[in-house]
Every structure is written in structure tokens, then in C-alpha cells.
């Protein structure tokens, strides 16, 4: 919300410079987001008089003007349609520098030379957007410097961030009250003084009846007649422009001015359009439609407060007026509304309608029900002054259940306990009274404009911010008296992450929102999608971490890095089971490209299945996951069937490992093979405690035995190892395949698998005989079980 320094000074006296004031208000909770001089400096722009306007000989939309600066006359080309002879205008001479850094030069436009420019308000930085040149309504003396004139009373604009609890400070008067509390200087309202037309009573024109007093607890109006609609005076236009409101005409400008000054929204109806001399306030019916003054027909949400005349609806209460009763150029009499609406009603309706106005913003935060009449009278008095209006005697005001100031009982010791202070009760009372509260016997009476003050802690904050948070004590953290219990989730996730980092992998971190087509590559049903997505690229919660990792691979390949090893830990979103979607933690890893970059002493080799499986095996061993087992993956999914295994623990599938389907990779524009694994970490947490006991290491020598079997190609080597492991007894310490051979020396369809075994005992040196016995048993078993022959 914007206000200006000089405007504020009309309500309260203070010594602070603009910057000092900004600092003090920021410290009190009114963050000044911007502070800037109202008039941005410009030079060599003088008051000019347009003496003659001729058509440009060679361009329809341009004119050739003669502009005088009092001593000389200049030829100037102008493009604005509103330029006429006799106007007093801001004239930028050759060499002038305008606020946006724009420099005026002598220029030839379609064959005619132009010595300068007639400026618009926009070009002088007075308005964000304006049409046509600025024709001064005051008769300034030609030749005078325009910047000097405009800046004669240098003003500054403050742009505040007002927190939603402080509806009262969405107004000049609210800020003035805060300045009063901070500085201790009194603030005062503007005097309101106008004569009413005693001949006629408002009751003859309008009767107000509130049917829904919950939605609209108060509705007041005045009848104002014989208005002349015209531009409002320069000073009012300048003020409104300064705070970002576009001047329209005197009536609209006055309602806006009072809104910004007092924070009370007003609405003007064309009295001629109000039928039956009555206003009824009710709530909307189901599927009721209404056309607002922006010409849009809207379907009203239920329980929307509607303002109606004797026959029809004329406005959506507190949100927007209707087209049917709008003030127009021919309006002479108006009904001026000033009301108080229930914040919850306005909030709900404005959200559902998608209509957010200066009025609705204030009503939904809570205006002052007892400030309604002041705003009405202030606007009426301005209309008398600026629109030649006559104000009909009296106010029509329906206010069945008046709001009274609330009371908060407080205990000084509790406030001190919360703030860590030891203020006296007297100090607390005095400080709170600076805000316009009255305090007696530890009871604070709260004016109705302070809708945010409800309980004791609210008073503690008021006290704290007036004292200034910087002046409140700070308790240094010296010793830890409280021990944090270990969090198991955190600990487990850290172990998993450390294991992956220990494998020299790079950690990725990616978006959890996907395109729906991306998500569907990984899961077809039960996807968790967003009702109100930001864009089509972010509609669905990731069912797999691989989407993000594939994006990362693609991103890097496009930037000429194609050897990629990444892992990521994060939540994935599976489906609705209970009240919330399933959102387990997962670990995923991808490998693509070459195992290592090509170098002078090594050739690069493409990654294959055994790389990813090796990573997974090392990971499992690192996190002390025992009893895991791989089985062939036989489902259709996003992994290639013939190059993928499932990871089972206690016969429960907790992960997959293998090659991703080429068509999945191609979706991400990846042509090279991608190998991946992913693991459900929440499931794994139930299966391992990530902790391991020390296993004794033997101090006796070991015996090694190699053997090779010739067997059918179709028999997995893993089955043989499994069989050996099961039958060899506990002297077998280690077992691995060290060679797999196929070739001419073997019959077709056969392969040779060479296995190395290491035997060792914890308590003795093994004899050859002992080992040979086991060895022979294994040979017999394998030959029989797998129809294999020992290769010699």
C-alpha cells in the first residue's frame, strides 16, 4: 500500500525525514518495501504555450505545432490527438533529459524538423500510463521549469507491505495512528464541514433493510444530488496517481480518495437506476447470475451478499458494483453506500468469483463498523466542494446490532514471561495507550478498528513492537540442558545417503512435479495429481525418482556430458491408501554412457548391466542388508525384461535393478542405454536395522579350490552358487565365479562356469583331506543337480 510523505503530514506532525520514518515504521512492523521521490528528476522541460497546430504535410496522425516558451517559438512535431492551440503544456527542449533516461534531440520526422517534444504525464514519470499530452489545468507562466514547479514541495512515496492482520493500516489514517504511537505526537482527522439540504429528508429517497444481518451487519447511505461530473482537480489527481490509482472523474476519484484516506470502501450508485426507493441486503440464491460493471456476467456463489433495489440486484456487496446502476456521464443524483460486511462472507465469495478489488481486500480483512459514517460524510463534503453537489439531509443507516469495543484482561507477569522482560504494569499500560487503547486495572479496551487484537498475547506483541524488538532482551545460548532423542528416519536416510556417497556417486535433487505424460511412463493408475497446477509441465506428483534423473541425463547429454552416474533420495507419491497419499522415501540411481572417460592410458567402455548390479550389491552390503536375493524381473513396466532383476528381501520385492526400456529413455530424448536401480527405503527400514555386529576374523590359513563345470547355457550361474552355499557347510567363507567360457572346445549350447571357493575355520588350520571331502561332495551335488560335468 502506498502513501506519500506530505499527505501523511496533513494528519500528523513529525520531525522524521522520509528515510528515518521508513526505518521507524519498518521496526514497528510496517515494512517499507520502497521509498522514492514522487517526481523523478528531469531537466530542460519548461512550461510551453501551444500557439498554433497544423496538420503534418506528410503524416495523417502527426501535427506540426508552434510552441512558445515566452521568449521564443519552436516548431515541434506532436503525435497526440488531444493537442490544441492555446494549451499550456510541459515542453521538453532539445537537450532535455526525461526520467527514463530518454534524451530529446533535434529530429526530422517525415521531412519536417522538430525542436523538442510536448510531454505526457507518462513521459515525465508522473503516471504509469497515460494517453495524450499533459495539458496543465493551472495557467503556469511559459518558460518556467516544470520540474521546479512540480517539485516545489518535494514529496516521497512509501510503499508498505501490510500484513493481513492489519486491515486498519490499509489506509493513510491507519499509518498516521501508528506514527502517532511511535512518535508520541497526536494525529487528527480532517474536519468535515458541509451544509445539508434541509428541504428534503433522505427517507423520502431511500429505505434500507438488511435481511441477512450476518453477512452485512451495517449498511448506510447518503443521497447526493445535482452533481457535475468532470475531472477532479490537479491536486487530487496527482495524489491518486502518486499512489498508483488512475484518476477517472471527480465522483469516482472522491470515493477512491476516501477509501485510501480512511480505509472504508464506498460505492456510488446512479440514484435514477435504483428502483422502488429501497435497498435490500440479502444473500444470493442458488445459481443466481449478475452482470458486474466490468460487463461480465457472473454466476454467484451461494451466500454471497447482494445489494438489491425494489426490483433487482444492483451490486455484489463489498466486491463489485453492477453494470445496471453504474454512475455514468449523465448521472446527476447518486446514492452513496458505506457499509460493513462480514469478512468471512467477502473472503469466500471473492475467492470463488476470482474477483479481488481494493474494496474486497479491506472488507475480507475487517473494516471498522463504526467508521462507516465518517467516510460517508467525508466523501459528501468533498462532493460538495469538488462536484457542486447538494447533500440530502440525513443518513439512511441500518445497524441492528452495533459493535462495541472489545476488552482484553491481561496479566503483566504473563506478558513479561513471554517477552523475557520485566516491565512494570504502569509501563505496559502507558505503552498500550499510545495506540489508542484505554487501559484500566489490567483491562484493555480495544477500539473497533483494531480487529486483530483479541487475546493477551496480541497485547504482548503490541508492547514488544512499540518498545522495538531490538530493545527486547536476548538470552544467549550457553549450555545444552536438553538431550535430543535420535530420530530413526533421519538416521536411516543418512546411512543410505552415506553409503551412496561412499561409492563416489554424485547426488542429484530434482522436481517432484511432472508432466502427466512423464508420470504415466512410470505408473498408469492411481497417480497423485494436482487440482490447480501451475502449468501443464507440473500436474502430477512423481511416482518414481527416475523421471527426474532421466531429465538430468538428457539435460547433461544436451550439454555434451554423456557419462553420467547420479543418485537421488526423496519421496515418491504412489497412491491414495488412507486419508493421505502413500509417500515413501525412495533411493534411485542411474548409470549411462561410459564407465570412465577415455584417457591416454585407458579406453572407454560402455556401461552394462553388471555395473548397475555391482553398485546395488555394494550398496546392500554397505547398509548391512543381509538375506537379499535377486530374481528375474518378469513384469511389463519401464524396465527391459531381459536385462532386469528384482531385489527381494524376505521374499518381499523392495526394488528393481536393470536397464530402462529404450522407449522410456527416448521420451526424454536419450538414445544411449540407461541402467538404473530404485529401492523403497521405507520398506527396507522394516527389514534391516542398518546395524551390524562384528564378525570374528579367522587367524588360521585358508584353503582355496577352483573348479569348472560344463553345463547347459540356460542354467543361471547364480543357481549353482546358491546350491553350493547351501550345501558346503560353514567352512566355506567365500565363493565367486571367476570365469564364464563358451567356445569351440565345448559342445553347442553349453558353457563352462569356473568357481573359486575359499575355506577357512575360526579355530584350526584345515587339513587337505577335510577340504577335499567337502569339495568332492560339492562336485557330486552340482553334477547331479544341474546335469553338469566337471571340466578338467
Amino acid at each position: 500500500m502506498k502513501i506519500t510523505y506530505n499527505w501523511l503530514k496533513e494528519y500528523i506532525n513529525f520531525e522524521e525525514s522520509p528515510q528515518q520514518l521508513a526505518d521507524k515504521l519498518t521496526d514497528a512492523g510496517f515494512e517499507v518495501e520502497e521509498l522514492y521521490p514522487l517526481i523523478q528528476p528531469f531537466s530542460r522541460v519548461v512550461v510551453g504555450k501551444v500557439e498554433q497546430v497544423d496538420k503534418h504535410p506528410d503524416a495523417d496522425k502527426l501535427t506540426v505545432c508552434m510552441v512558445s516558451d515566452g521568449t521564443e517559438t519552436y516548431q515541434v512535431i506532436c503525435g497526440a490527438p488531444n493537442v490544441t492551440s492555446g494549451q499550456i503544456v510541459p515542453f521538453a527542449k532539445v537537450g532535455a533529459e526525461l526520467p527514463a533516461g530518454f534524451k530529446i534531440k533535434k529530429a526530422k520526422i517525415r521531412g519536417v524538423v522538430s525542436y523538442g517534444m510536448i510531454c505526457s504525464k507518462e513521459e515525465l514519470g508522473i503516471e504509469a500510463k497515460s494517453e495524450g499530452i499533459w495539458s496543465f489545468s493551472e495557467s503556469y507562466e511559459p518558460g518556467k521549469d516544470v520540474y521546479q514547479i512540480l517539485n516545489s514541495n518535494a514529496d516521497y512515496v512509501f510503499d508498505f507491505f501490510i500484513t493481513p492482520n492489519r486491515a486498519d493500516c490499509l489506509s493513510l489514517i491507519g499509518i498516521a495512528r501508528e506514527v502517532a504511537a511511535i512518535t508520541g505526537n497526536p494525529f487528527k482527522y480532517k474536519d468535515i464541514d458541509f451544509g445539508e439540504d434541509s428541504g428534503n429528508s433522505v427517507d423520502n429517497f431511500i429505505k434500507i433493510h438488511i435481511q441477512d444481518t450476518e453477512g452485512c451487519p451495517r449498511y448506510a447511505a447518503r443521497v447526493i444530488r445535482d452533481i457535475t461530473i468532470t475531472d477532479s482537480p490537479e491536486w487530487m489527481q496527482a495524489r491518486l496517481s502518486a499512489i498508483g490509482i488512475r484518476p477517472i472523474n471527480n465522483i469516482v476519484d472522491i470515493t477512491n480518495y476516501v477509501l485510501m484516506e480512511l480505509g472504508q470502501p464506498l460505492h456510488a450508485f446512479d440514484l435514477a437506476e435504483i428502483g422502488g426507493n429501497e435497498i435490500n441486503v440479502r444473500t444470493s440464491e442458488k445459481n443466481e447470475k449478475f452482470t458486474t460493471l466490468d460487463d461480465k456476467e457472473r454466476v454467484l456463489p451461494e451466500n454471497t451478499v447482494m445489494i438489491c433495489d425494489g426490483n433487482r440486484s444492483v451490486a455484489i456487496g463489498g466486491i463489485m458494483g453492477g453494470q445496471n446502476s453504474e454512475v455514468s456521464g449523465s448521472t446527476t443524483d447518486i446514492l452513496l453506500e458505506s457499509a460493513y460486511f462480514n469478512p468471512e462472507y467477502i473472503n469466500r465469495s471473492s475467492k470463488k468469483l476470482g474477483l479481488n478489488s481494493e474494496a474486497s481486500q479491506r472488507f475480507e480483512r475487517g473494516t471498522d463498523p463504526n467508521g462507516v459514517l465518517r467516510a460517508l460524510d467525508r466523501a459528501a463534503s468533498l462532493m460538495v466542494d469538488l462536484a457542486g453537489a447538494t447533500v440530502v439531509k440525513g443518513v439512511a443507516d441500518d445497524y441492528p446490532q452495533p459493535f462495541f469495543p472489545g476488552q482484553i484482561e491481561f496479566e503483566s507477569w504473563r506478558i513479561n514471561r513471554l517477552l523475557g522482560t520485566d516491565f512494570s504494569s504502569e509501563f505496559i499500560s502507558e505503552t498500550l495507550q499510545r495506540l489508542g487503547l484505554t487501559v484500566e486495572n489490567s483491562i484493555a479496551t480495544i477500539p473497533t478498528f483494531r480487529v486483530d487484537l483479541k487475546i493477551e498475547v496480541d497485547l504482548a506483541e503490541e508492547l514488544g513492537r512499540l518498545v522495538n524488538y531490538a530493545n527486547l532482551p536476548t538470552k544467549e545460548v550457553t549450555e545444552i540442558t536438553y538431550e535430543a532423542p535420535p530420530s530413526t528416519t533421519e538416521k536411516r536416510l543418512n546411512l543410505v545417503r552415506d553409503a551412496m556417497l561412499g561409492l563416489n556417486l554424485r547426488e542429484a535433487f530434482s522436481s517432484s512435479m511432472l508432466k502427466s505424460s512423464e508420470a504415466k511412463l512410470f505408473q498408469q493408475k492411481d497417480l497423485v495429481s494436482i487440482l490447480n497446477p501451475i502449468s501443464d509441465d507440473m500436474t502430477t506428483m512423481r511416482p518414481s525418482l527416475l523421471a527426474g534423473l532421466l531429465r538430468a541425463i538428457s539435460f547433461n547429454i544436451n550439454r555434451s556430458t554423456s557419462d553420467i552416474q547420479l543418485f537421488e533420495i526423496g519421496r515418491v507419491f504412489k497412491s491414495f491408501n488412507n486419508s493421505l497419499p502413500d509417500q515413501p522415501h525412495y533411493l534411485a540411481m542411474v548409470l549411462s554412457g561410459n564407465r570412465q572417460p577415455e584417457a591416454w592410458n585407458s579406453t572407454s567402455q560402455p556401461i552394462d548391466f553388471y555395473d548397475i548390479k555391482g553398485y546395488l550389491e555394494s550398496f546392500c552390503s554397505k547398509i548391512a542388508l543381509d538375506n537379499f536375493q535377486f530374481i528375474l524381473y518378469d513384469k511389463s513396466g519401464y524396465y527391459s525384461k531381459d536385462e532386469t532383476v528384482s531385489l527381494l528381501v524376505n521374499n518381499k520385492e523392495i526394488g528393481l535393478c536393470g536397464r530402462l526400456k529404450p522407449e522410456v529413455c527416448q521420451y526424454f530424448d536419450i538414445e544411449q542405454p540407461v541402467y538404473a536401480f530404485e529401492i523403497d527405503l521405507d520398506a527396507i527400514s522394516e527389514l534391516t536395522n542398518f546395524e551390524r555386529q562384528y564378525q570374528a576374523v579367522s587367524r588360521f590359513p585358508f584353503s582355496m579350490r577352483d573348479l569348472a563345470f560344463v553345463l547347459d547355457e540356460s542354467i543361471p550361474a547364480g543357481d549353482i552358487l546358491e546350491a553350493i552355499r547351501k550345501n558346503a557347510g560353514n567352512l566355506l567363507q567365500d565363493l565367486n565365479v571367476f570365469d564364464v567360457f563358451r567356445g569351440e572346445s565345448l559342445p553347442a549350447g553349453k558353457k563352462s562356469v569356473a568357481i573359486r571357493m575359499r575355506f577357512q575355520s575360526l579355530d584350526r588350520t584345515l587339513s587337505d583331506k577335510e577340504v577335499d571331502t567337502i569339495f568332492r561332495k560339492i562336485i557330486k551335488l552340482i553334477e547331479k543337480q544341474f546335469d553338469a560335468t566337471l571340466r578338467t
Partner: protein
Amino acid sequence: MLDKIQRIKEKFESEIKQVQDLPQLEAVRIKFLGRKGSISNTFAMLSEVPKEIKPQFGQGLNQLKKFAEGRYEALKKQFDKPKVDTPVLDLSLSGRKPSIGGKHPLLAVADEIKSIFSSLGFAIEDGPEIETDFYNFEALNIPKSHPARDMQDTLYITEDIVLRTHTSPVQIRVMEQQAPPIRMIAPGRVYRRDTPDASHSPFFHQVEGLMVDEGVSFADLKGIIAAFAHRMFGKDIDVRFRPSFFPFTEPSAEYDFSCVFCRGKGCNVCKGTGWMEISGSGMVHPNVFKSVGIDNEKYTGYAFGMGIDRIAMLKYGINDIRLFFENDLRFLNQF
């Protein structure tokens, strides 16, 4: 008979001339000087040699053997010597580099924050990213019609299920489960309906902090934030608290750190103010205590938040939040 010695000698000479390396030399040695080599074999024939030429034959054979052994030794010496043309190690060539892994910079900063708070006695908690309206709003004193809901543009899954807009719901979950004293932080991902640009991402990362005990005051809050600032950015960092508004705290405060780049002097990054806005904090609102059944006459507490992304950007001088989530290896490999 004597010409046999001559023939062996010629053959030996022609073969030894061809020898290029040790194995070839060895082969020649075996062929001529070995136990079954032709010279040894010829010695075996000595008994069959007629008496008259026996001495001459023997002498000749001995000379041949000596000759052959001499040539063999000489050549062996030559081959045994280190080769003159062995290439010297070029130490300027690059070594075999193992691949470098490492933490994502954002998560490395999260680790740093976690370890600071752990050392200050805070437990680390976790909560779901998709939350009920109750945990994300209602229990935090933000009823449906509250204007504060507009402060956080929310992404919805259903009318009552949202992508959490802050890590504050973890406060509620922990207070429901545990009795005071409570000291915890909850780092994690949060979501807002923001269009991505250099300073906004629709998902970002926060750390929630909460302490509840008897006699916890605003002075403790000021103390803990200062302790964090000093451990994270250095002893010379100042902390500033400004009044603000959050429905779940009262009094509420925004807190700023003095600019970590200019150390408070004023620079481009802090727009000359010397301060950087960090996040919000305050004293737990009595309504929040009521919603989790903690006695607010007995206990008081403070809560604070902080943006991990923002702190990481400050720490590394990163000016575009989107860099964190692209996973560009040229970016990641710098950390």
C-alpha cells in the same frame, strides 16, 4: 671328423647372429650348450673318435665350447642390461582419476544447518510432503476463511489435501506425539503456486524449528537465531528482528541477518541496506497449543523457519534458484 666341429661352429655363429632377445638366446644355448645340445652331444662321441685325432678333436671341441660360452655370456650381459631405449615416465601426463562423487550443494547446506541445531540439542524430525488441510492450516490457527491463506498460494490435491506450504505441520505432528520439553527442527520440501523464475521455484526447502518448555521466552528465540547466524556465517553477523504476522505465532517476527557479502556495509546484493531478509519466527500462538492439547498456562514456546535454498544461495553466491534442480553436472561438480 674334425670338420664336424667346424660345421657346428658355423651353425652356432649363424644362429647366434640372429638372436634378438633373451628367450632366443636361451633357445640357442639349449640347442648348442644344453645337456642334449649339439656341443654336449659331440663330447659324448669322444670315445668313438680314433685315437690319433682324439687329442686334436678334444681340444677343438673344448675351444668351441669356450667360444660358444663366451659369445653366450657376452650377449646375455648385453640383454640383461637395462635397455637404453626404454621410455622414461612422462610425469606431466594425467594420472588415473577415480570419479568424484559428492553431496548436492543444497543438501550439503541442509546438513550444515542440521548439524548446527543438533549440536544445540534439537532433534531432527520429518513429515509428509502431502498434508491434510488440518495439519497445514487449521491446527496452525489458519481457518479456511483466513486472509493469511492468500499469503501462501496453495497447490491442492483434493479440497482437503494439499502440498504442504511450509514445514510447520511437522510442529503439529510432533506436539501431538510428544509432551514438552520439545526441541526439534524439521527440514524438508515445501510447495507454493509460484511461477518459476530466478528467485522463485514452485517447490523449495525449509527448516522448521520449535522449542516448547516452561519459561521459554522471546529472549530465547532471539538467542537461538543469533547462535545459528554466528555458527553458520560467522561471529560478526548481526541479527535484526522486525514485527510481522503469522497466524501460528504471537508475537511474530521476521528476522534479518546482516549482509553476508558486505558484512553489513551495504552492497549490490543487499541493495545497500546492509541486511538480508531470512525468514519468520515468533512465540507459539495459544490456539496452536490448544489444537494439540498442550497446556498454554504452563508452557510457552518459540517457532522459527528458514529457507535452505536461500541460505545456500547466500553461502555459495548463487543467483538463480533453478540451478539447484537442473542437475547440470558442470554445476554439481563444483561442490
